[in-house]
């Protein structure tokens, strides 16, 4: 089991962290959520059926914890942006570099941004995304379609 923990943490922590960053917008909160996701493993008594099942389960727990975090009383009150250094202290994006697409994705509704992440970054098939997000395949396809439309508009307008 020790090796199992190591394998699971090393295999999934980066991807779960990236998923959390779509919700929490700061690294400390994202790390906390990733940690809580792994701790949920301890509450699970049954083994996973296969690696896909394990992955889908972790993603689902992680999304739920991210949503819980957003609902919590203090996260609503904290102006995350203001925890960051003021613009003069931040690193500037050098000219010619691609704009922050991630920021555009973050502005999408919860379901759409998660679907975009799982589809475009994790390369998961729609059937697996549906399983991880507890939704029908057609619903996932519809989220992706809407997200593509919104993103195309935002990217065109802003950049």
């Amino acid at each position: 089991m020790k090796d199992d923990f190591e394998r699971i943490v090393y295999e999934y922590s980066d991807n779960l962290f990236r998923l959390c960053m779509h919700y929490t917008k700061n690294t400390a909160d994202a790390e906390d959520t990733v940690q809580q996701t792994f701790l949920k493993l301890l509450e699970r008594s049954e083994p996973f059926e296969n690696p896909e099942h394990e992955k889908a389960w972790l993603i689902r727990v992680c999304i739920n914890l991210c949503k819980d975090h957003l609902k919590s009383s203090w996260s609503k009150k904290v102006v995350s942006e203001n925890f960051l250094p003021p613009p003069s202290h931040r690193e500037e994006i050098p000219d010619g570099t691609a704009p922050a697409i991630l920021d555009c994705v973050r502005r999408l509704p919860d379901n759409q941004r998660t679907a975009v992440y799982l589809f475009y970054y994790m390369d998961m098939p729609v059937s697996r995304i549906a399983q991880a997000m507890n939704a029908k395949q057609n619903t996932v396809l519809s989220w992706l379609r809407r997200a593509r439309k919104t993103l195309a508009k935002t990217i065109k307008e802003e950049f």
Partner: protein
Amino acid sequence: MFRDVYQKELDSLHVSDSFKKSVIDQLQASRTDKRQNRQSEPVGKRICFPKIKRSKIRAFAAVFALCALALSSILPKEDAQVTPLLYSSSGYTKADARDISPRGVKAISAMMIPYTFSQEGMGFEVYIVKDISELYKNSPADARSVSGSLKVYESTSMSDRQTFTLAESLLRSIGADAESTEKEYTWQVPFYREDVWAGNSPQRTAEYTPPREDSFLYSASYTFDGGQLEIYPGRARARLTVSAPENLSDENSLLSWAEELSQKLGLENPESYSYTDYTFSGERHPFFYVYDNTGDTSDTLFAHSLTNISIYKFRESDEVVIWINLPAYNDGRQMPAITINQALGLLYNGDYYTSRPEGITDESTVAMAELVYLDAYYDAKTCQKSGYAVPFYKFYVQLENQDYLTPEGFVTYCAYYVPAIHPDNLQVNDDFSVYN
């Protein structure tokens, strides 16, 4: 195209190896705890051993108990106090001081909430600024990424002899002749009313001769050609007034000069910063700060918070006042720290320290957070600093009621402090007497 850029951006986000290791450790520790708990739960079953096995188990248990007893008398004992004493400050209606010290030691320290604003003698720590980012201090430690532990520093008092040695060293470092300086000593002489201490009265002497047996040295002043040095051993601070070189017209040259001077005064890797804060009278915050970046997170943050050296340049003259915090602390003791999210949980739960009369509500907005060290307590009776410098999360909370004393275009924020050390490791003495 979208997929490539998106993937590239996300590839740059990853957690550190130390984070992964700490999660694995935590998982293993939690699993061990769970197993132990499960084993200690009554299961409603009785296990019967054969008679011979039962006597073997009894013999083993007896030997084990004897060993444990012997070990317990050899091993150092943990402090028996168990209560984590972090009180909600919602009941406090004015600025006050609290004892905060590591558990297991005598509580002799306090955290003093600073007064930066007062009205008719009462006040609380507020910041009136146009933009909260004006208060940004370019801290060497990011409040959002605290994990593991932070140090707590115990202040150590300075003897008069150490004061004089340090004074000579400071004078030498700036090229002043210690022998030809004019010296003056200020003593604090206690006075009493009906045998009860009623205050201290200052008396000055040209020689190091206490005016009375119970008086103690408050400051030593050295006037030399081109400036003056005053040392306050109880506060562990020194004040140097000198003429600055003529070419220090802009901020950058002043900061470079401050860093050079700091190196002469003993800082190994000085770094400087200043606020961009404008007061509501329209004037820029006039202080510049220099701290020693040692590479150690706690040490550097401690130096940054207390600022080894702060510099004030008068506008109307070339005179510069330099405050030097003297090294009157021990090396620090590592203690478990809490994350900013845990601190926010405590904040909204009312477990904070503040000088503001009102507490925060669910509607209060935290606009900025910093990790800072608050200095050990200074007791005006004994004129000594004592106790511990403890790290705190400092939350700038926007006041809901902006009507009073907030000029148009400005926003008022009040500071709320939550200790960054885990509450189980702190003890707070509520009976502390406050003299100033």
